[in-house]
C-alpha cells in the first residue's frame, strides 16, 4: 500500500480504507496478487474473493487495475488467469464473476476475449463519476461470468444477459 500511488492516483482506481484491503488479505490472500516490474515498481494488482452458497459458490473479482504506463501488455489477462486458476483449484468454485461499468467498453471487450459473458445488467450499481455526463450507462454495471471446470454444462451463464436487468438492491 505504500507503493501503489502510480496505480491508484489514476481516476479509474478507487483507494479504500485500511480495513478494505486487510479484509481481503486476511480472508483470501491467494486471490490477491500484485505484479511488479523488474525495477520494483508496481505494475498492477487484482483483489478477489470467494463467496456464494451451493451452486452459486464462485470467485469474484473485486478490483483489477494496471498502472497507465504498464497498459497494453496483457497484464490484466495474466492476473485474471491466476485468479481463475486459484478459484478453480483451491476454492473449487463453479464460476468467476465481476462487475464492470457498462460504459467501459475497453474492459468489456477484454473480458469477452477472456471467455466472460454478460449474465445480467445491474441498475445503478456504481456512483456517478461526477464528470457531468449523467448517463444511465455510466452507473449501470454488467455482471459478467465465466464458468470453471466444476460447471462443465455452463449452467452459470446465459446468452441473452444484456437484456436481463436487476436492481442494485437485489445483488450483494
Amino acid at each position, binding site marked *: 500500500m505504500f507503493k501503489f500511488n502510480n496505480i491508484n492516483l489514476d481516476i479509474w482506481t478507487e*483507494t479504500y*480504507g485500511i480495513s478494505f484491503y*486487510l479484509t481481503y488479505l486476511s480472508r483470501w490472500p491467494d486471490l490477491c496478487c500484485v505484479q511488479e516490474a523488474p525495477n520494483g515498481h508496481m505494475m498492477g494488482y487484482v483483489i478477489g474473493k470467494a463467496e456464494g452458497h451451493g451452486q452459486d459458490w464462485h470467485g469474484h473479482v473485486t478490483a483489477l487495475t494496471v498502472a497507465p504506463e504498464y497498459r497494453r501488455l496483457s497484464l490484466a489477462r495474466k492476473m485474471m488467469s491466476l485468479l481463475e486458476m486459484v478459484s478453480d483449484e483451491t476454492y473449487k468454485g463453479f464460476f468467476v464473476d465481476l462487475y464492470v461499468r457498462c460504459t467501459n467498453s475497453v474492459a468489456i471487450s477484454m473480458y469477452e476475449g477472456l471467455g466472460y459473458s454478460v449474465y445480467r445488467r445491474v441498475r445503478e450499481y456504481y456512483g456517478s463519476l461526477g464528470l457531468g455526463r449523467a448517463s444511465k450507462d455510466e452507473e449501470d454495471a454488467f455482471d459478467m461470468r465465466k464458468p470453471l471446470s466444476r460447471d462443465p454444462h455452463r449452467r452459470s451463464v446465459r446468452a441473452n444477459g444484456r437484456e436481463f436487468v436487476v436492481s442494485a438492491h437485489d445483488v450483494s
Partner: protein
Amino acid sequence: MSTALDRQIRPIYDALDTQSNKSAVLACNKVLKKQPNNVLVKALKALALVRLQKVEESLLLADEVLAKKPTDDGVLTAMMHVLRGLGRHSDIVAMFETAYKQHPQNEDLGTQTFFANVRVGNWKAAQQVATKMHKQFQDDRYLYWSIFSAVLQANDMATPEALRPVLLKLALRLISSGNTPSYFNPDRFYVHLLILRELEMYDDAATLLNHEIGQKICETSLVCDEIRRDIMKLKGACKQEGEQAKVKILEKKDRNWLEFLSLLDATFWDIASTSEPASEDVKAAVTEEIAKTRKVFSEAATVDGLKDRSGLLALLELEKRTKSHGLWTDACEIRMMAENYFSQFGDKACCYEDLLPYLAFEGEELEQWTSFLNSRKSFDTPDTLQRSINVYKLLRYNLTSAELTPELELARAQEYIKVYLDGLKFGVNLPDTELQPADDFAILVGHAYVSLWKLTGEESHLQSAAATLEYASARSKQSYRIRLLLIRIYHLLGAPALALDHYRLMNVKQVQTDTLSHLILSRAAMWSLAPLGDITYMSECMEASQIYMSNSTETAEFIARAFSTERYSQIIDFIEFEDRLDNSLQRDLMKVEHVRMRVAHEPLNAELVDMELIELKFIFDRIHHDNRDFEVIPNYQPRCQPSFNEQTLPLKPPGAGWLSAYLKVYIRAFQELPLRERLVKKRQEEIDDLSEDEKLFYEYTLALSEWVGPYHDYVRPPPSALLAEAAKSNDLKPGHPLKSMAAAANGSATNGHSKKDEEPPAVKESPELIPKFFDDMKSRFDAVISGTALPSELLHIVATTQEAYLLFALETVRFKPNSIIKQYKFGQLAQSFKDLRVKASSILNEMSTVLAKLGEEVATPDGRKAFVQASSSIQDSSGFDHDFVLGVAKKTTDARKQTYEGIAKGLAKVVKNHS
C-alpha cells in the same frame, strides 16, 4: 436474559447502533434507576459516554464494571469497545483473562483472551493461552495459534537474542505434535517452512518442499513459493533452482520474472558465490553457461514475440551481468539487445523504464544508439506517437553535460512543445476521463525548463514551465503526473495556494496521505498564514493524520482476524504495516509542522504547552520509517543531472535528523523540568539535515535555552509537584487532555512560588548569539531581496526569523508578570529581554513592510507583463495563446501576492501579540 429485561435493553442497543449516543445514555439511566447494579447497562452507558467524549464519567463507570469481574458475553463485548475507546488496551486483556479463569471450559472466552493479547502484541501471553486451549479443546487450530505466537515472540525486537532459537525450537517441536501434518493447509505449511528457515534447517525444509504435496502447494500458493525460493537460495541450491526455472520457462511458458532471475543467478553462481577471483577454468565454464542461458531466453523471446517482454529483458540483464563480472562480451551486445527490445516494444509506455538500467552508453556506442533512436521518430499514428515519446525520453537520458547548454536546452524545450501540440490531434475525440496520448511531451517541456532554470538561475523558465503544464493539465484533466510537476513549480514560485489546488484535485486519501502529503506539508509552516487565523495547512495536517488513527483502531483487529481464519502468512505483513504507519516519519513531521503553526496561531498558554509537550515527548524516542513516496514524481532528466524531484525541492526534504532537531527545540521550549543532557546535545545527523538558515536557528535556540534555563529552574515550583502532575497527565490518552488537568497544571505553575532558600542566580547578559541571529537573518533577507533568489527562499528566511521570535516569547513569558520580577529581583533580566524583544520586533516589522511592498509590486499589470514576456519562448515557437499565458501569469502573481501580503500581515500581528 428475561424477556422483560430484554425489552428494556433492546432500545439501548438500537440507540448505540444508530450512533444516537445521547438517547442511549438516557435509556440506560432509565433502567439504572430501577436496577442500579445492572452491570450490562452500566457497560453500555460507559460505551455511549466514551463515544460522547465524556471520558471522565466513562472511566468511573468502566472501573465499576471491571471490579465486578464480568463474564457475561454482552458485558465483555461492550467493555471491549469502551476500553478501546479509552485506550486502555491492557485492561481488555486483564478483563478477558479474569473471565476465562472463572470459566476455563468456555472456548469463546479463551478465544477472546487470545485475541486480546494478539491485539496488543503480547505474544508470550498469547502463546500461553493458546497452549492451554489446545490442551483443553484438542483442536489443531489452537496448536498453530500457539506455534505462531511463539514465532512472533521470537521475531519481536524486545525478545532477548538468546531466547529466540529456544522459542523457534519449541515451535518446531509443537508442529510435530499435531494430529495433522503441516501441509494440511498452505498457511500451516508456510509456518512450518518459516520456522525451518529461521533455524537454518534448510535440508529439512527442502525435504518438505520436494514432497509431492509440498510441490503442489507451492504451485498455487504464492507465499509458500516465495519462501521456497528464499530457502533454496539460502541453501545454496541456486543451480538446482536454475534448472527448474529453465524447465518452467521453456515448457510451461512460465513468465514470472522470478524464474528468469533464478536462471540468471544460477548462470553466474560459480563466480558470484565466492569472493575469490575466478580461475580461467571457472570463467570458461560460466561463459559456456551464459551461452546456454542466452539460448533459453532467446527462445522465450521468439516464442512470445509481442506477447511478453520478459525474454528480451532477461537477455539485456544477462549481458549486463556478463559485463559486470568482467567476462568477455562484445561491446555492442547490450546496445544491440536494447535496439532489439526497442524495435519490438518501443510503442509501449513501459519501454523507457524497462530499458533504463541498461543504457549507460559512452563514446561510439552512444553515437550509434543515438542515431538509431533518431531514425525512429515519427508521428503518424497514436502508436508511433508513443514510440516517439520514448525516443525523446531516451535521447534526453543520455545527454552529456556538454550538450546541456542553455541554448540547446531552449531549442529542446521548443521542439518538445511543437511535438506536444502536434500530438494533441490524436486525443481530440477522447472523453475527458482519458489521458492525452501526448501528455509526456508536455512533461518533457517541464523538465527542459526546470533544467534551464537550474542552468541560468532565471525564474522566467519556471514560469514558462508552469504555463505549458497548465495548458497540458487543462487538456488532460486526469493526469496526476502533470499536477505533480506543477505542485513543485508553484512552491518554488511562491504560489503555494495553486500547489494546494492541484494536490487536492489529485484526490489523495487514506494511506496515500502518509506517502504523498509531503508534497504540500513539508515545512508547511513557511507557507502558512496561521498568525492571521488561516488554518488551511493546520487542517491539512489533521486530515492527513486520520490514517494513523484508523491504523491504530483497525489494523490490530485484522491481525486477530487473520489468526481466526488461520492466514498466518499475512500476519507478519500486517504487523509490519501497522508498525510502519504507527512510526511513520511523515506522521511526526506533520505533528511538528502543526505545532509550529499552532504556536503562531494561538496564545502561548499553559494548555497549549502542556498538551503539546506530552505529545512531542511521546514521539521523541520513536524509531521512524520513511514511507514518503518521491518515486511517483516523474523524472526524465539526463543521467548526468539530479532528478526532477531533487531539482525542484525548495529545500532538502526534512528527514529523521531534521525531526530530531525540531523535536528538541520545542521540547526544550515547552519543558518544565530541568533540561536533560540529550536534549541539549547536538548530533551531526541533525545538523546535516538542516538548511543553512535552520542551522543558525538551531544554534540560536540552544543559546537561548542555555541562557534562560537557570532562571526557569529557580522560579519553577519544586520538581516533585511537577513530576506528580506529569505522571498523572501521562496516564491519560494523548489527544484527550482533561480540562481540569490543564487548569491544575496552570495553577501549579503560577501559584507555587514559595520563597526559596538559595539566592536567585546572578543575572547574566544575553549571549551574543541571540541578537546576532536576528542581525544575520536581516542581512540574509536583504541579500536575497537584492539578488535573484526565488520567493521560496525568501519566505523560508522570514518564517525562520518569525519562529525564532515566537520561541523567544515562549521562553520568556514566565518572567513577564511584575510580581515575578519583583519577587526574584529579575529587573535587570527583564530589561535584557525587553531590549532583545524590541530589536527583534523592529527587524520583523521591517521584513513585513518589505514583503508587503513586494506583494503589491508583483500583482500589477507590469508584473504580469513581465511574466508573459518571460514566457515569450513558449509563444514564439508555438503560437501558444497570449491570453492563455496571461491567465496563468495572473493566477501565479495573484497567488504570490496573497502569500506575501498574508505573511507580511502575519509578521506584524505576531510582533503585536507578543511585544
